[in-house]
């Protein structure tokens, strides 16, 4: 399955990127494809276009703060989790998203 995701933590220097890496790794392990946008202290990186989002089945928002450009995700099924969850148990996030 195709996923998109956004990660964002308050400081935006470590958790954001660690969570993105975990989501990418886990998606690969589970046989999914995923594009992860990071909203760290540098702002938006690896930005998801509307086309990326429309092409995906679901969006994972692993964020502790309000994200930028949230309106892009208005039309897609989404699951909101804390950043910590992506570090501790990324597999569970995918299960939750598939079940949602």
């Amino acid at each position, binding site marked *: 399955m195709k996923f998109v995701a956004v990660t964002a933590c308050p400081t935006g220097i470590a958790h954001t990127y660690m969570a993105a890496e975990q989501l990418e790794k886990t998606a690969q392990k589970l046989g999914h494809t995923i594009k992860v946008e990071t909203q760290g202290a540098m702002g938006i990186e690896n930005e998801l276009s509307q086309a990326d989002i429309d092409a995906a089945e679901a969006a994972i928002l692993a964020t502790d703060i*309000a994200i930028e450009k949230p309106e892009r995700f208005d039309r897609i099924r989404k699951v909101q989790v804390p950043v910590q969850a992506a570090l501790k148990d990324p597999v569970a996030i995918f299960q939750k998203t598939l079940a949602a």
Partner: protein
Amino acid sequence: MKEQLQKHKQYLLTGVSHVIPVIACGGILIALAVTYAFQFKLLNPHGGPDFTNAPWLIKNMALIGEKAFQLFPAVLAGFIAFAMAGKPGLVPGFVGGFIAAIPQVVGEKNASAGFLGAILIGFVAGHLVNGLKKLPVPKILRPVMPIIIIPICSTLPVGLLMLALNMPIAQVMVALGHFLENLQSGSQALLAMLLGAMIAFDMGGPVNKAAFFFGAAMIEQGNYAIMGACAAAICTPPLGLGLATLISRQLWTDEQRESGYAALGMGMIGITEGAIPFAAGDPFRVIPSIMIGSMVAATIAMLGGVGGHAPHGGPIVLPVVDNRIIYIVAIVAGATVTAVLINTLKKLTEKPAVAPAAI
């Protein structure tokens, strides 16, 4: 109720994430200018720094840092309101926060409502704007809502409220400052232990950020001790765990030893999150070890008068720390305690059959 609380935490953290670079900029520029002033004995009669005869660059560094600090409550409140209400939240949030920065004379002291006022007014502004957005408006008036009605109808009451609250909140801030300054060393140690435990507990998560932000916000109030204690505590979890993998290599897997180097690197630049790969796999031994290590580091730093001028931790901020020797001692002690604790716990609770196999 719980969901509401969760959301408000998210709003607050959005504000915090935008304000951290502002505090870093202000704190570091001022600290460097002040260091220069002390180095070259540019002092006023009260023993504080006096920049009137300082070189052009130093004088302006102090001025620019000060301006960044004045912006701090505005940015904090502005982005709290922004997280809640989007673009229309910015104006009342910024203006309300800017008013919270107006200096008040409390007794003999100058204080402002500062971060407490900013957080409060940011929430008020966000809620008010969200309320205004819901008002039923005839179609012809709709275009003027976001550019005239909402900015004025939110900013005027928010501004008036903040003006009224400035004095009482500034008094609270002064009382808090007094309280922190007059802590006996016993209570100082207690406060430091609490801060250290919070910093290490979730390694960069919300509990860590609460302690960290308290320290960062107190920099603006001219109290550097809280941040000093936090700065030392921030780096010892990854440093201690990295150190542990170096001390007893046979206790750790190849992958963990690899993470150990990464953790040491992250510790040096003050990123507590470097400890997460260890804690994720083994929370019951790792988290107590890093909490105790950070408590030790924070306590030594606090009692040794370490001051942190930048909202960041680890050896990387050494240039803008007061009492550098004690700061290093605190970090080394905290990291060593963590390393010894985790290795001892591992030795005691792990079957010895696993360990010698690696030799």
